[in-house]
């Protein structure tokens, strides 16, 4: 069989499609999302829209960590990394909620951040063990940091969702309104998909971080809409709070869905043929 020669790679086009460059770098993203998310988690009296902004930032950070961790081809599938992040997040959120009452000042719950820190430590330990030569020996650069950020982002996201739905971070209130009603199962899946879907859908040779992140923001907007409906169904907060969250989420979803599709359309012309795969003789 004749083998078509690989097409010579053309010069990279100077102008990329639509860009979404906030914040530009992975480390900056982690710091900004972590700090803003932590502050919004502590102040539980804020309106749901502001918590929604924090949730979008934190989910974006989680998506970035999923991308960072699974970029090297783990052989486990990208979805499992998102599920791992949410699994760590639930354990960390339980820990944070249990200590929430200590050091509480009115509507402020600074102690919940203990859960985030503990989950960061567990993520670091599991990443170190997975990467260590003596144990699993994954030998993936920066796996420790990726796993740590996954644990922290997952915990912050679950705490923020609990805070949006119940309006406080009281252990008994969360257990009654989130755990016992089964809303936690919805949150588990929302979180998983907001973190795993963007990279799972966009990965490939031509993956670009900005485009993947547009998909991430779009799904976070959908999560906000769904959480608004959960708020309405449980009746835990005033009507304007839920409705504003739904409207905010819908606008975010519409804008970023349009941007994402536009970016895909703009960039698809760049796809180059690489020729047929060589057959083994």
């Amino acid at each position, binding site marked *: 069989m004749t083998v078509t020669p690989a097409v010579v790679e053309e010069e990279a086009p100077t102008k990329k499609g639509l860009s979404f460059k906030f914040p530009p770098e992975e480390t900056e993203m982690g710091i900004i999302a972590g700090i803003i998310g932590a502050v919004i988690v502590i102040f539980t009296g804020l309106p749901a829209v502001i918590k929604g902004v924090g949730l979008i930032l934190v989910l974006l950070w989680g998506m970035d960590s999923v991308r960072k961790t699974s970029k090297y081809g783990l052989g*486990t599938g990208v*979805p499992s990394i998102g599920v791992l992040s949410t699994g760590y*997040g639930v*354990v*960390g959120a339980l820990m944070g909620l*249990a200590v929430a009452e200590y050091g509480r000042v009115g509507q402020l719950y600074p102690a919940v951040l203990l859960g985030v820190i503990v989950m960061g430590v*567990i993520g670091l330990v599991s990443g170190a063990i997975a990467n260590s030569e003596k144990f699993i020996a994954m030998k993936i650069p920066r796996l420790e940091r990726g796993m740590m950020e996954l644990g922290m982002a997952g915990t912050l996201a679950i705490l923020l969702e609990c805070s949006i739905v119940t309006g406080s971070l009281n252990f008994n209130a969360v257990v009654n309104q989130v*755990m016992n009603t089964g809303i936690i199962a919805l949150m588990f899946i929302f979180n998983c998909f907001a973190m795993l879907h963007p990279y799972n859908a966009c990965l490939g040779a031509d993956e670009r971080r900005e485009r993947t992140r547009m998909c991430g923001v779009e799904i976070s907007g959908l999560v906000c809409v769904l959480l608004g409906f959960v708020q309405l169904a449980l009746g835990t907060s005033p009507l304007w709070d839920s409705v504003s969250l739904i409207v905010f989420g819908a606008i975010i979803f519409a804008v970023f869905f349009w941007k994402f599709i536009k970016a895909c359309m703009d960039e698809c012309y760049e796809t180059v043929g690489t020729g047929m795969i060589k057959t083994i003789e």
Partner: protein
Amino acid sequence: MEPVILLIVGYVVIGGLLACFAAHLLPVGGAPAAMGTATGIATGTVQIMLGAAMTGLFTAASVDTFTDSLLLVTLSGAVGATVMICVVMFMANIIYGFGAGIVPVSGRVDVDPITKEPQAPYKTPQCDGHGVPIVVFVSGSLGGFIGGFGGALMYYTLLNYANFSAGTAAIGAISIFVANAILAAYNIRGTIEGFHDPKFKRLPYALVASFAVSLLCGIVVSLTAILGGTL
């Protein structure tokens, strides 16, 4: 108060180790199995294990409503998970056999260790086996049983020793289960057929990692129970 904490941590560690062990027994096919070019079910380790364990939790939670026996609850969880994984493997075989027209055959051994049937002549060249042959089916059923047992053990511990509510206990058990399954998935790296697979020899490494993570998770859960006022 002390013995209860030890019991919680101990059972969570045992459950985590069982989850990690069970993940190595499952027929994980991954993306190649979706094309029929590898043995097993066409998805990743964590997804298969999570599906089986969650079904196990449903049966365990149902049984838990009318009994206090640890053995009965954990065994019902194990049976639920086994039924789930068996149905999935059986349906996979039907689709591969009648849909894709390939025979279930193991890619890692030349002769089936249980039935002594030859495998190599039926394997398509350059493929890594197809479907779910008998030895893989047996291994997968065992994996479902052990994994469901581990998941239900964690659920029972969190529900009755840490005194969490049913919803909290279920989601906590699933979360710790996932953390252990992912370590197993890291260790497996792609596809595995079961106890006859050469990759199964790497199991001790994953068990050490799983022990460390389960111990930390057990301590976190005990702290949650103490500080949250349920213990």
